[in-house]
């Protein structure tokens, strides 16, 4: 029997992974989430996701052509930005504002920094932060899910004319045959009314007419697919959710009934979506393993702090944006030690290096220190 065993040195990579392949898989894993979102909110949600994604793709095309940047529509990165942005917006968000959000996401979040791979902040969240600042009222207007006739008619606020204020949904909702309805998200209800929603309902998003995003359970499932196929690093979501849960539990244990229980904190709002799909954006998160833990912990703790002690009910977006800004610093302080270099690095300044003068800084070369005697091949002055 003949076996074909090829012996090679590390790294053992089976097949190189292209950006396009990773991004396509992320888009595929988002499809069930989108489908569920449309099932919850009907055609308004579908139109919103399509409009935002379309705006992202068009602006990406425009900036790639204008700026001569790397990247193309076929790498799916703008699609992901659009779909994620659409999922974070309230389903009744006016479509023209969705257009603005999509354009801002690509223009301010991505093109400004030089296109794909160079962005400092997650583009989808930059787009959301822009419309949050521009239209604070519209972005806080949620409608209950599973309304009757949601596949037949739009939520009135969706169809606002461009540049015009959206219609008030209150009268339209009054006409709905609902026992009890509220436009407030579970987080806003907790923050401003002091009522908690059951954790089971939050996890599935199925019962009642909750004003929530796609089911956290479904997002975790889709995220698990990505993590198992190694399209996403499991450390970041684990660190985000773990630290958020732990912080919430600590505050709950000390502060008591004033604060919600940790499970409510974990499954409400956009924490799961943010932890799985936004914090793990490859261009804006650290690449070092220890850095990923630090980065995730920072997001988790910040989210809980903003939610509990800030003015806004939701803090995931700002937590991730702040953590994005710290990514270069985190990478710098968590550089792993290369194999075999441990001893010399631990010794620190006391260690003696036999460096070639080309590899030391100008100051070091000019300094009259004992290091100089190691320069065997000191260049002679002509």
């Amino acid at each position, binding site marked *: 029997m003949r076996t074909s065993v090829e012996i090679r040195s590390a790294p053992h990579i089976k097949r190189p992974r292209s950006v396009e392949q990773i991004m396509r898989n992320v888009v595929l894993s988002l499809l069930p989430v989108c489908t569920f979102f449309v099932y919850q909110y009907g055609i308004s949600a579908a139109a919103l996701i399509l409009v935002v994604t379309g705006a992202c793709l068009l602006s990406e095309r425009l900036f790639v052509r204008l700026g001569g940047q790397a990247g193309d529509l076929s790498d799916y990165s703008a699609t992901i930005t659009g779909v994620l942005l659409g999922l974070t917006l309230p389903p009744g968000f006016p479509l023209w504002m969705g257009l603005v959000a999509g354009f801002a996401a690509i223009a301010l979040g991505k093109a400004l920094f030089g296109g794909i791979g160079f962005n400092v902040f997650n583009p989808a969240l930059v787009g959301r932060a822009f419309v949050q600042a521009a239209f604070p009222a519209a972005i806080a207007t949620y409608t209950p899910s599973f309304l009757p006739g949601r596949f037949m008619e739009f939520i009135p606020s969706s169809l606002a004319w461009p540049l*015009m*204020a959206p219609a008030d949904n209150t009268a339209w909702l009054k006409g709905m045959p609902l026992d009890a309805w509220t436009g407030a998200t579970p987080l806003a209800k907790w923050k401003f009314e002091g009522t908690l929603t059951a954790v089971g309902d939050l996890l599935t998003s199925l019962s009642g007419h909750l004003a929530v995003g796609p089911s956290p359970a479904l997002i975790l499932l889709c995220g698990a697919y990505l993590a198992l196929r190694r399209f996403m690093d499991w450390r970041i979501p684990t660190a985000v959710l773990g630290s958020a849960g732990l912080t919430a539990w600590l505050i709950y244990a000390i502060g008591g009934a004033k604060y919600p229980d940790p499970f409510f904190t974990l499954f409400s709002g956009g924490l799961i979506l943010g932890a799985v799909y936004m914090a793990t954006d490859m261009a804006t998160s650290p690449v070092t393993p220890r850095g990923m833990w630090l980065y995730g912990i920072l997001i988790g703790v910040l989210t809980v702090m903003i939610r509990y002690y800030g003015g806004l009910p939701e803090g995931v977006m700002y937590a991730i944006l702040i953590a994005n800004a710290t990514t270069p610093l985190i990478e710098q302080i968590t550089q792993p030690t290369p194999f075999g270099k441990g001893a010399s690095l631990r010794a620190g300044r006391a260690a003696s290096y036999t460096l070639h003068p080309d590899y030391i800084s100008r100051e070091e070369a000019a300094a009259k220190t004992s290091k100089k005697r190691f320069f065997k091949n000191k260049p002679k002055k002509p």
Partner: protein
Amino acid sequence: MKDLSQAKNFDEFLEGIWRQNPVFVMVLGMCPALAVTVSAVNALAMGFATTFVLVCSCLLVSLMRKLVPKEVRIATYIVIIATFVTVVDYIIQAVSLELYEALGAFIQLIVVNCIILGRAEAHASKHPPLTAITNALGMGIGFTIGLFALGGVREILGAGKFFGVSLFGANFQPWVVMVLPPGGFFVLGAWLLLFAVIRRRKEVRLSTSGGGHVA
């Protein structure tokens, strides 16, 4: 000879409006440019106030350029500028108290506007009065145009109005961010981008047409 000096004067005048525009090319005086440009009226008032101070101070600095010892020149310029700023401060207060409150401390802060001190130091102290005020007037008008470009866009998007006249009717959805400080940065960035694109196009056109001549 006279034609030549006139052309040179005109060139001095145009320098501030286009080639060395304080807002879009030199990116100077950003503090008032970002802070007070929430409406077209505010922007114009700020621009005119700065232009007045700029022209008067440059005239005085130019007249005194041989008298002032080098060691105390900056202090002298600041005293001159502060004098005219005080004049403007009282004029605006007398003309419109509403405008005075809208512009707030930024009228007094014209004293430390780097365009004015920069012009006094770099231009007026080295040129005769006529050239100095021509240049200063151009710079002032250029600054006013820059502020107006920012204030106009921010008022249209942030309030749906232009010079206080409603453009889109009562149902307009204001972009809150545009009247906040970040809006100033966004609009300024967009204008700078536009001018950068124009400049790039011009350079490409010049280089290609130049190459054509050689070939």
